[in-house]
């Protein structure tokens, strides 16, 4: 302090007055919501890595089958169940097919189904739950009873009916997948929205004459984003397994095409003798899941402006 004093001159005690502009300009550079979310996502190393991993998986699913020398349906029948070798790095399955090739072919189906299923039930669940929660009262009561009815009817019967009415194919597979899968999310969203309806900003929006659909989509849903993300990322494996179940009963993809779920189900039988047949598809599912979840966590944080500093 003393050292400072020395430098003080009378000049320095001249009045400069307020510099309002300066006091206001302690602002940080302002960027848009999406830019900011993206910036924050980039800062999250784990989420970024997960995203790269997922992109890698997708690229592999698209291209690997073209590059890899072994076809996914080629049966090297003499060497069934062979463990990993230099030639077949993930080994062969119980019909002597290359598991590495099959993992990527199966990934096409599983990733697509996982994503489509997640997106469809996300959309349906969110809209349904949103409407139910927003209107409350009798509407809510009836809508929730419908959910209960849907969950109550035996799934097998519904699925068989779907396959009869629509035939077997991707469309009916997705329909069967999503028929009840959205109900959990719908209930979750509804609960959240019932809470949010108490918020004053909803009242404010009503006072401004904001139409109902806008209140739901602009005010309510964004604020339930974190549960939605968690639930959705968590639901992906259940779609992957549901697909394998539906394929098993003949609704999904037809052999020799395959999926991770189907491979895992097959591998599970061989678990004690040929663990590699379960290991690789299970690993593919788990790692993808892990990546989805970590990315989901990152997204949730990135989209939460409260965490923005």
């Amino acid at each position, binding site marked *: 302090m003393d050292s400072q004093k020395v430098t003080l001159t009378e000049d320095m005690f001249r009045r400069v007055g307020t510099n309002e502009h300066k006091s206001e300009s302690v602002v940080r550079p302002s960027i848009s919501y999406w830019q900011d979310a993206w910036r924050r996502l980039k800062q999250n190393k784990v989420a970024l890595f997960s995203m790269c991993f997922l992109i890698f998986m997708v690229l592999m699913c698209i291209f690997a089958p073209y590059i890899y020398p072994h076809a996914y349906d080629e049966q090297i*029948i*003499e060497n069934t169940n062979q463990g990993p070798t230099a030639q077949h790095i993930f080994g062969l399955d119980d*019909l002597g097919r290359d598991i590495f090739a099959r993992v990527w072919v199966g990934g096409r189906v599983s990733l697509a189904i996982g994503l489509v299923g997640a997106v469809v039930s996300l959309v349906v669940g969110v809209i349904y739950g949103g409407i139910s929660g927003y209107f409350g009262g009798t509407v809510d009561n009836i809508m929730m009873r419908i959910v209960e009815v849907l969950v109550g009817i035996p799934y097998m019967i519904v699925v068989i009916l779907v396959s009869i009415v629509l035939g077997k194919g991707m469309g009916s597979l997705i329909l069967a997948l999503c028929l009840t899968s959205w109900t959990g999310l719908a209930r979750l969203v509804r609960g959240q929205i019932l809470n949010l309806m108490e918020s004053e900003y909803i009242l404010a929006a009503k006072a401004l004459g904001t139409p109902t659909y806008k209140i739901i989509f602009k005010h309510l849903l964004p604020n339930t984003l974190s549960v939605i993300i968690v639930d959705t990322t968590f639901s992906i494996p259940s779609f992957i397994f549901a697909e394998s179940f539906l394929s098993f*009963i*003949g609704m999904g993809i*037809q*052999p020799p095409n395959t999926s991770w779920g189907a491979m895992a189900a097959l591998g599970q*039988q061989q678990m*004690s*003798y040929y663990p590699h047949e379960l290991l690789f598809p299970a690993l593919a599912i788990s790692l993808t899941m892990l990546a989805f979840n970590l990315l989901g966590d990152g997204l949730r944080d990135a989209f939460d402006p409260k965490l923005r500093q």
Partner: protein
Amino acid sequence: ACGGSGGNKENGSSVSQQEGKNPGDGKQVVNIAMTTDPDILDPTRSDDAQKNQITLEVQETLIRMKDGKITPGGAKSWETSDDGLVWTFHLQDNKYSDGTPVKADDYVNCMLRTFDPEVGCHNAGMFYCIEGGEAYNTGNGKREDVGIKAPDDQTLEIHLNEALPYFLLMANCANLTPVPADKTTGEDNLTYGSNAEGMMYSGPFAIESWTRGSQIVLKKNENYWDAENVKLDTVNLILAQEENTRQQMFEEGNLDMLTGINSEYRKKMQDKIDSKEVVFEENANPSSSYICFNNNDPDGVFSNAKIRKAFSLAIDRESFLKNVQKKNKPAYGLVPYGINNEESMYREEIEDPLLKSKDEDPVALFEEGLKEIGKTRDEITVTFLQSNANNDTKLNSEFFQRQWQEKFGITVKIDTAADNSTFNNTVSKGMYQICNTGWGADYNDPMTFMQCYLTGDGNNPAFFSNSEYDKLVNEAKSEQDMKTRQEKFAKAENILINEDAGIAPLSYSFQENLINKNLKDYGINGSGGPLIELKNAYME
């Protein structure tokens, strides 16, 4: 299991514990797995291997097989009339576990219930050879007119429509066991066998407790006519539906027998087998698996015999059995090993019919067939209907798919039936092209297989129809000369499998079993009788 045997741990599985806790030297306990959960133990309705296994330990059939030979069971002797149409059985002095004597009427009652339309027994068709049976069963006849009578308490008379040389072999069916009429009156006619308490036990063992979905405990029946030769005190039948589970239980000593193991497991256990720690045994299990072509194919593909045969020949059965199924033996005929024609084993006498054509080129045949039906290769898409029983069925179809696609350059689609019911429904209505099914012997005679492919038979999923075949098989029914009979069968089989290729045989089933080395004198039956005969077994 615990009779001082070294391999067993003190704390067995919970289910065997109540009984097996005290490994006193006198205790004779055996633990066997149930692979499915039996729904009813009414002998009349015992229509699958699992139910047979249980029923035949606790009920006494007229005869019992021992080492492939017919031995007296509930009947101590029997004779047939000269025309072969009337069988007379003289019964043992047998008693039910509660001490009531077994009467001939009880056998009559059981058989009558088999035909009783109210009961709806799946096995009834097998016994249509009994006079008046079919009529009663289908509602066109009266109960009194069925040709099974009890002139006195110890005598049973059975009147047949035709002189079937193999009828005696059907006498170890659960449908020919005693069920007292007073237990099956009114409501009980339908509910008999749904709980352990309401049943009567005439066999070497009696059910002591039945926990549905879990286990059945059998106790020695002290009133059994041959009780002195029954050495086991207790048999625990433990439900274990997963193969892995059963294997682990066997290794832990919770099971004394493991049937139908696969080659992987055998390899794993080979050391123990070699060192005689466990006993390995193989037996023919007379059932065969085959591919059914829809001979009435609505698409007009498999109505052509050449195409059928091409498809049949295109399958590399050796590779299939060795690399995919890893058990059983390749089949080129219908009648499996373990089926006798009188004394001789049919399959050992008669060469597999398809072997004759083994060297024919399937592709050439296929092309000929195509020409006949006037289609080109590209026009053909074939759909394989697959049941969704388990992952193995899937594997099999994918193997066939690949084989056909590769060889014929056509598209083979796999269509999976949503469930059992759908599969049966689709097949029985003929709304499929190819599917995979099989048949297991009901009794130890080729007829049990051959009669299925008679024109219009209910169990003819291929809708196979060949008048020559019909003629041969029908003649064989009452042919008393065994040699001629065998020839007729051989000719018929050749028509079905080779000439007309109505179906494509895949495999004969062989069972590999592992047995606790201390278990002695058990029997493993092929056709008829309990799968595992424990009447004389004991633990060393």
